[in-house]
């Protein structure tokens, strides 16, 4: 198939296709803007580069800058997870369209090329929009806030090379992801069937999990053994956390699903069975929430240690830093919840016939909404709680090893309290998300769907 034909066939015409493309482009633009901001922050040459007072000191202070750049870069992770989820929006209608292409003579490879062209094009548009989005971010956080509240120094032009790199990376990544998602669906001329999605972790999962775990342990105990390992240990730990979280996410969701299925009642059975049947999609959101939890746990534990141990003339500056990290975690968690919402909405559309059948059997809509709420809570709450406990445990462990006194124990207690509060917040977010989806549940259970094949 000629590239021009692939682009022509990939051009979004239906509302669902336009929605999917817009969401992919928007997520890529925001992720690209965060990436460009991280690169720009990392490249500051010192106080003389843009200067800055008040909150901008977190960026201009050479000792803090690498950490800030990495933190901003980490915000890319939840937004990319949203982008990956967006690839699956409206997949039922898209699969039907692909089947009609097959009927018209397109080969399986050509169908994958169309999917790659659609996702790659949307991601390229997002990558190109990342430049203006970066400038908007800079204006929003660096120009509009008054005086010392500006979080970033004066706006600087987009780094053209980095921008081009982001656009290229987005296009290639989007095309590969689009082809991969289409690869999970067998499109034949007479219809579509999804490949039975395995409810077991992939073959590489154990290796990724072990590697991630080793890196996390190495990063945690490294500074205890060798004091000069500080900065490098943080980077090693961060890579380890990312690998571990994405390996553990689907396992955590699968475990939640199995535990839920064993509880009494149809509500728990339906919610648990859904999670057990496809833990990978929700597992990505769980992974992002584990990462958010880890960041919050580390932040909370370090804040307690700072308050109880350190004598500092600039306490307010550091405490504000801890608060800003918590704010960043909140942003990441909100994006993760949005991903959960998009996934759940699409799942309802995908399962509208079984759901309409359940209604015909006597399952009322409030019960289906409660099933959805339990399903979402079973993804979000364990992920956040486990993340906070691991995150808080990482600094608490060396504190306990070095000096197992009152302040180390206080750190552990505060970590557990943070885990409880974060878990409650995740529960409330899951309930609110399910509430927002009530109209989708109503639409999915419409008797008209009983006529949908």
């Amino acid at each position, binding site marked *: 198939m000629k590239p021009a034909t692939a682009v022509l066939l990939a051009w979004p015409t239906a509302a669902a296709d336009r929605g999917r493309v817009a969401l992919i482009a928007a997520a890529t633009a925001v992720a690209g803007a965060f990436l460009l901001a991280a690169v720009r922050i990392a490249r500051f040459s010192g106080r003389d580069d843009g200067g800055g007072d008040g909150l901008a000191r977190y960026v201009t202070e050479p000792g803090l800058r690498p950490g800030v750049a990495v933190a901003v870069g980490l915000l890319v992770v939840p937004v990319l997870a949203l982008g990956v989820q967006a690839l699956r929006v409206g997949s039922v209608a898209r699969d039907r369209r692909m089947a009609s292409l097959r009927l018209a003579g397109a080969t399986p490879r050509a169908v994958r090329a169309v999917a790659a062209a659609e996702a790659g094009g949307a991601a390229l548009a997002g990558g190109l929009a990342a430049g203006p989005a970066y400038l908007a971010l800079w204006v929003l956080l660096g120009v509009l806030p008054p005086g010392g509240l500006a979080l970033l120094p004066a706006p600087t032009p987009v780094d053209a090379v980095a921008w081009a790199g982001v656009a290229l990376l987005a296009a290639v990544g989007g095309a590969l992801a689009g082809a991969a998602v289409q690869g999970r669906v067998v499109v034949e001329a007479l219809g579509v069937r999804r490949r039975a999605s395995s409810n077991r972790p992939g073959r590489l999962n154990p290796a990724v999990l072990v590697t991630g775990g080793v890196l996390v342990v190495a990063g945690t105990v490294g500074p205890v053994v060798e004091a000069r390992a500080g900065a490098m240990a943080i980077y090693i730990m961060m890579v380890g956390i990312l690998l571990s979280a994405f390996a553990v996410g689907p396992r955590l969701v699968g475990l939640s699903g199995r535990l839920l299925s064993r509880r*009494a*009642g149809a509500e728990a*059975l*339906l919610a648990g069975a859904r999670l057990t*049947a496809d833990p990978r999609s929700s597992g990505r959101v769980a992974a992002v929430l584990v990462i958010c939890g880890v960041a919050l746990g580390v932040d909370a534990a370090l804040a307690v240690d700072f308050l109880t141990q350190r004598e500092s003339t600039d306490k307010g500056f550091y405490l504000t830093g801890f608060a800003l990290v918590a704010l960043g975690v909140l942003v990441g968690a909100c994006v993760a919840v949005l991903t959960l919402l998009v996934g759940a909405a699409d799942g309802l559309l995908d399962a509208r016939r*079984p759901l309409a059948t359940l*209604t*015909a059997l*006597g*399952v009322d809509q409030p019960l289906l909404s409660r099933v959805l709420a339990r399903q979402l809570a079973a993804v979000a709450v364990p992920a956040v709680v486990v993340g906070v406990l691991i995150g808080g445990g990482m600094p608490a462990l060396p504190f306990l090893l070095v000096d197992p006194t009152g302040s180390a124990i206080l750190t552990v207690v505060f970590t557990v309290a943070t885990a409880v509060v974060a878990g409650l917040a995740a529960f409330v977010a899951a309930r609110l998300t399910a509430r927002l989806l009530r109209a989708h549940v109503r639409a999915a259970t419409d008797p008209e769907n009983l006529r949908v094949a």
Partner: protein
Amino acid sequence: MSESHDRLVLELNGVEHAYRRTVALRGVGLEVGPEEVVAVTGPSGCGKSTLLHIAAGILRPQAGAVRLLGEDLDALGEAARTRLRRERVGIVLQFGQLVPDLSLLDNVALPLLLAGEERAKARGDAAVWLERAGLDAPLGPSPAELSGGQAQRVAVARALVTEPALLLADEPTGSMDTKGGEHLLDLLLGAARERGAAVVLVTHDNVVAARADREVRLRDGAVEAEAVLR
């Protein structure tokens, strides 16, 4: 209301329904007595499925009255209609009606679980009905791996597990071969007779309709003819 009307399992009077500009039912009336098997027949698009959905309380008619098991459906709220359907009506649809995420055993046990039954008891009852339907419950395949005929047998087991007073079946043999269809009807009608349940069979297949006590023929959304078959 007369005593004979009180004994009716299902009663539709002057039921009308339309989907936007397409009229599906025009003043349809239907009465089904206890233990009676009624076949609703007619060509595609004549309103058979709409009639069944209205009879089950899944759809509210735009005009007319429906009494199901002595209850005026129009007077019941959504929750009460759902409860009535769950507890006293068994429904078999044409295809794709099993919950893909659940095992066969849990699919059949689901109506009992929804009614608040203990998991072990519900699964025990479900296993009995699955066995009657000719399927091995614990070692059985997942719903996605079933043939159309096997899925229908599971659906029939699920419709029967609550021992309903009324069974509503929409083209239950539509996706099956002749022999498989006969076996399914044996299971469905045999169990209904054992339990004293009434049955409404929606079908366009004359062989299936011939198994009923009475046939009601629809055309263009209205009753065209009625015939007592046995």
